[in-house]
């Protein structure tokens, strides 16, 4: 997320015009769960990330890519269709968008219970966001299979 005031006039206009297209969660979506120290956490990014050699994202792509939890930083690349966000940070340090090293440290420090075996990435910026619903439901089942009970959604 970012401050609206920090964006160029054209970026600001583009962001504001998306607001009426956004759905609204209802309170049923809020649920309690175990304490953070017992939770198994997965990262779900919208940065268009994937393993080198996996199929790049394309225009309008609403599917996701699977990122193994034991991936090395050198094997994760980005093929997002948007040109309107900074990529130099990710080029320098993958944790800027995909904080797997930090998550692993928090597991070691017992702040979280464990890190998931698999993480995932969509390519955000497809509108309306409700188009992602069927793929998100499919992904939720994969997360359940991995006994994940906390998801860190990391947008760019």
């Amino acid at each position, binding site marked *: *997320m970012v401050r609206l005031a920090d964006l160029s006039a054209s970026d600001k206009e583009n962001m504001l015009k998306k607001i009426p297209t*956004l759905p609204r969660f209802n*309170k049923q979506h809020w649920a309690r769960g175990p304490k953070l120290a017992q939770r198994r956490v997965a990262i779900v990014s919208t940065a268009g990330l994937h393993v080198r050699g996996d199929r790049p994202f394309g225009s309008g792509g609403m599917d996701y890519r699977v990122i193994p939890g034991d991936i090395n930083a050198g094997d994760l690349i980005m093929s997002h269709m948007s*040109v309107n966000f900074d990529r130099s*940070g990710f080029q*320098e340090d993958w944790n*800027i968008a995909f904080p797997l090293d930090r998550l692993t*440290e928090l597991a070691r420090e017992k702040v979280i219970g464990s890190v998931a075996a698999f993480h995932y990435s969509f390519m955000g910026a497809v509108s309306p966001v409700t188009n992602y619903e069927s793929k998100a439901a499919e992904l939720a089942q994969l997360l359940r299979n991995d006994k994940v009970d906390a998801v860190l959604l990391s947008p760019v």
Partner: protein
Amino acid sequence: MREHTEALAPPRALWVPFMLGRPFGVPNDAAFQKKVLHAALQLFESESGPVLEDFAQDAPHQKLSSPPENLVCPVSFPRMQAEGTLAEKLAEEVSQLQAWHAVAVKLRGRTTLGVTGMPPLQIVDYLSAWLDNQPPQPFRKDIAPGDALKQACDELKAFYLEAKSVQPGQHSAVSIQEWFWMETALAQAIVQIRTIAANSTEPSVKAVAVMSLIPRSMEAALKRAT
């Protein structure tokens, strides 16, 4: 964007005041990144929801450093050559950047290149065909022509940004972006290709030309420069 999150009202959200593309603040600052991550994960401890909290701290200034002297590239950083076609200038620029890119890979231990499967000079050939108004076939059979064009432009741009980041001097995300768009032959090539692609009858190419080749934030500066 906080305004989007307010409209969506997701169960738990942490608003952060960082630039787009940097949700955890700043590269190579593990302590700060962990602070942001911990603040987000702490929302799982909230007793009721939905909850939208603000992360009140701005990203610290990025520690900008020059490469160690023993890794400084022996060739000077290229300036665009004055003579020749744009395709020739592009090929020359990329050739000169190769050594700097090798330094970047050595320093970081990784590169983000690898989306197209083509080395940089092969991408130059692909883009040069576009500059000649002879759109080439996509380099993969399973992607649309517009996606191929986008991936080629982004991959070569990533090569430039990675190479530039280790040039002596200090470079922020903003200064690197301005250098790229205002001073390089590749940026000039992308601007020209955008005009060609915008007139394409292939829908995927036209869409990429309109939406995905040049950042909205740079459009005004590029117009002033031409």
